[in-house]
C-alpha cells in the first residue's frame, strides 16, 4: 500500500505515456493532454509546500536572538508583497509592482553581478598553462575573448577563427556530452518506470 501502489502508478503511467508517442490518434492525444493537465494541477498545488517551509522556518527563527532581525526582515518583505498582491491592478501598477522593480530586480541582478568579480579572480588565480590540456583551454578562451577587442584585420581573422571553433570542435564536444546526457536520462527514466530506481519515494 505504501510503496507497492505508487510503484504500480509509476509503471502504468510511464508505459501509457511511452506508448502514447507511437499511437497517432485523437484519443491518444486526448489522453496525453488529460494526464499532463493533471500533472500541472498537482504541481500548482504542491508548489506552496516550499513557501510554507520557508515561512515556518523563519517564524521559528524569530525565537532565536541571533537570527531574529533578519528573519523579521524576510517575513516583513513576504507580508508586504502578499498584502499588496490583493490590491486591484497589482499586475501592472501599485505598491506590489513598485517593490518588485525597486527591491527584487536590483538585489537579484546585483547578486548575480558579483559573479563578474569572481570570474576575474578565478581567471587570474587558476587559469594557468600548467599542462597541454590547460594550455588548449586557455588559448581557446583567449581567442573567444578577443572578439570584443577591435584590432583591425586581426579581428577579421579572429572572428573567422571564433566561428570555426564554435561550429566545429566546440560543437563536436558539446554534441558528445549532450548525447551522453540523453542516454543517461533515458536509462534513469527506464529504471524509474521498471521500479529499479526508487529514491523519489524517500524512506519509510
Amino acid at each position, binding site marked *: 500500500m505504501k510503496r507497492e501502489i505508487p510503484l504500480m502508478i509509476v509503471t502504468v503511467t510511464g508505459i501509457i505515456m511511452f506508448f502514447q508517442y507511437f499511437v497517432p490518434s485523437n484519443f491518444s492525444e486526448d489522453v496525453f493532454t488529460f494526464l499532463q493537465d*493533471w500533472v500541472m494541477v498537482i504541481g500548482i498545488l504542491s508548489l506552496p509546500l516550499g513557501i510554507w517551509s520557508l515561512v515556518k522556518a523563519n517564524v521559528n527563527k524569530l525565537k532565536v536572538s541571533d537570527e531574529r532581525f533578519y528573519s523579521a526582515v524576510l517575513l516583513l518583505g513576504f507580508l508586504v508583497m502578499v498584502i499588496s498582491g490583493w490590491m486591484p491592478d497589482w499586475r501592472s501598477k501599485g505598491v506590489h509592482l513598485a517593490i518588485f522593480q525597486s527591491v527584487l530586480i*536590483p538585489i537579484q541582478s546585483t547578486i548575480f*553581478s558579483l559573479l563578474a568579480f569572481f*570570474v576575474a579572480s578565478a581567471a587570474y588565480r587558476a587559469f594557468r598553462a600548467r599542462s597541454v590540456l590547460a594550455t588548449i*583551454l586557455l588559448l581557446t578562451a583567449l581567442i*573567444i575573448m578577443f572578439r570584443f577587442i577591435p584590432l583591425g584585420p586581426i579581428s577579421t581573422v579572429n572572428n573567422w577563427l571564433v566561428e570555426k571553433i564554435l561550429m566545429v570542435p566546440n560543437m*563536436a564536444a558539446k554534441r558528445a556530452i549532450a548525447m551522453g546526457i540523453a542516454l543517461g*536520462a533515458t536509462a534513469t527514466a527506464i529504471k524509474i518506470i521498471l521500479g529499479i530506481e526508487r529514491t523519489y519515494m524517500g524512506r519509510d
Partner: protein
Amino acid sequence: MTGGQLILNGLAAFLTLCIFSFLYKDNPFYKFAERLVAGVATGYWTMLLFHTNFVPVVWNRLAHDGRYEYIIPTLLGLMMWTRFSKKWSWVSRYSIAFYIGISSGISITLALYASLFRQLEATINQPLTFDAAGVSSFLIIVGVLSALVYFFFSAAHKGSMGVVSRIGIYVIMIGFGAGFGMTVMGRIALLVQRVIFLKGYVNSLTAFFGG
C-alpha cells in the same frame, strides 16, 4: 523623473550597494538585502501562483466551469501536503508517483529523439567533399566520435583507444575553453548593467537637484 521615482530608484541604488559591499567582506547590510529579497521574492511568487495559476487552472474549473474531473488531481495535489506529517507522509507518494511516471514516460522518447537521434543524424549526414565544408564535416565526425570514446570507461584507454580518447579530451578542452570565453562576457554583462543603472541614477539626481 518624478520625486517618487527618484525615491524608488534611490532605494534600488542603496540595495545594489548593499550587495556590492559583500566584495569587501560579509556585513549586516549585505545580510539585510539578502534576506529582504528572499522574503519579497517568496511573497511575489505566492501572489503570482495564487492569482494567475491556482485561480484559473484549479479554482475556476471546479467552482465556475463545473469540470468535476479536476477533483481527482486537486485531491492528489492536496495529498502532497501530508509530507509535513511523519505518520502520513507516505500518502504524498501517490501524487509524486503520478508526476514521476508521466514525466519519465514522455522523456524517454523525446530525449532520445531530440538529443540522440537528431544529433547522430546531423553528425553522419554531412558532405564529405574535398573543400572547406568537407574538412569541417570530417573534423566534426572525428571530434564527436573521439569525445564519445573518451567518455567510454568500460574499456581501458590504451593503445588505439588511448590515442582516440586523447584526441577526444583535446576536443573537449576546446569546448570548455569556448564556454569559458563566452561565460566571461555573460558575467561582465551582469555587472555592466548594474553600473549603467547606478550611472543613470546619479545623472537623475544631478538633473533633479541641479535643475
